[in-house]
């Protein structure tokens, strides 16, 4: 294998980090540019080229790919980030206050054992922490999908909103004594954020249907 062939093969390997649509559109050009800039006898990309390819591939994969003029889309993404932050704070608070919960339980019941504490964690804390982490993943996934112009958030976000609203109303109407005020406040704010997200996603009709990767204007 010649030096040129080895270098081209190495560049192609690193270009695989880009999304398929991006590669279909630009791979030949990027490769040509990289090969034109190569030194005589170079067989492998320079470290700075690796870093550039990996960094820009991550950017192409993660950054929103709708026009910046679509303000509703970017506002919806911000709403998803607010939801993520709220869930994150909730999970951190749950974990950070475990000691206080244990101390409270122990003060109310002098015979409170380690087994009872493990049962409490399994029944009351673990489900909430796991649920919070799943919700964080879901919020992030929604933010990414809205930014990529995918359509499924138009279905998922209203369902998410309806479920949380049902949980909030159930907590207020039937389980008010067992539900703490901070829990209700967080659930209320999350519902508001979801409602804002739903409105914004439905306002961004053009962005979520046409401004996707690969939908480039054709040559004149």
């Amino acid at each position: 294998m010649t030096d040129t062939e080895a270098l081209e093969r190495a560049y192609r390997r690193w270009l695989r980090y880009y999304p398929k649509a991006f590669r279909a559109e630009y791979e030949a050009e990027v490769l040509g540019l990289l090969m034109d800039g190569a030194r005589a006898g170079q067989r492998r990309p320079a470290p700075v080229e690796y870093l550039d390819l990996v960094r820009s591939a991550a950017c192409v994969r993660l950054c929103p790919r709708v026009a910046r003029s679509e303000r509703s889309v970017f506002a919806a993404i911000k709403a998803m980030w607010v939801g993520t932050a709220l869930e994150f704070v909730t999970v951190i608070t749950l974990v950070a206050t475990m000691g206080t919960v244990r101390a409270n339980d122990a003060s109310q019941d002098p015979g409170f054992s380690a087994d009872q504490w493990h049962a409490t964690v399994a029944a009351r804390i673990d489900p909430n922490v796991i649920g919070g982490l799943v919700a964080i993943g879901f919020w992030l996934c929604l933010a990414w999908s809205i930014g990529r112009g995918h359509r499924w958030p138009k279905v998922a976000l209203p369902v998410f909103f309806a479920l949380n609203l049902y949980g909030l109303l159930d907590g207020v109407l039937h389980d008010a004594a067992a539900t703490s005020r901070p829990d209700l406040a967080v659930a209320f704010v999350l519902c508001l954020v979801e409602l804002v997200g739903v409105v914004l996603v439905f306002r961004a009709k053009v962005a979520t249907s046409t401004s996707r990767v690969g939908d480039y204007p054709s040559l004149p």
Partner: protein
Amino acid sequence: MAKRTMQEATFLILTALASGSQHGYGIISDVETISEGRVRLRAGTLYSALERLRVDGLVRVDREEVVESRLRRYYRLTPEGKKQLAAEAARLQADAATAFGRLGLAGGRAVR
């Protein structure tokens, strides 16, 4: 809502395309010249920026050609790209004039 300011690389790419269509290598060379060697764009950065600019409707493909069996695509500014570049240049000029004025240097403007 305050409008986002343009990143320097974006501004330089649009400036490189302001005088006519260019291919990737031409843009990189021109950006280096415009920035007096301060900004050296790499291939990955350039094409992720071009893709972003195409999605935003500021840049479009002008024509394609094959040179020595390699694809060469020429990019050009759209009317919206020209408008946004002019707006950003005016903003930078106004900021620079204010800075010069406060420093008491030539090219500044009186600021109360």
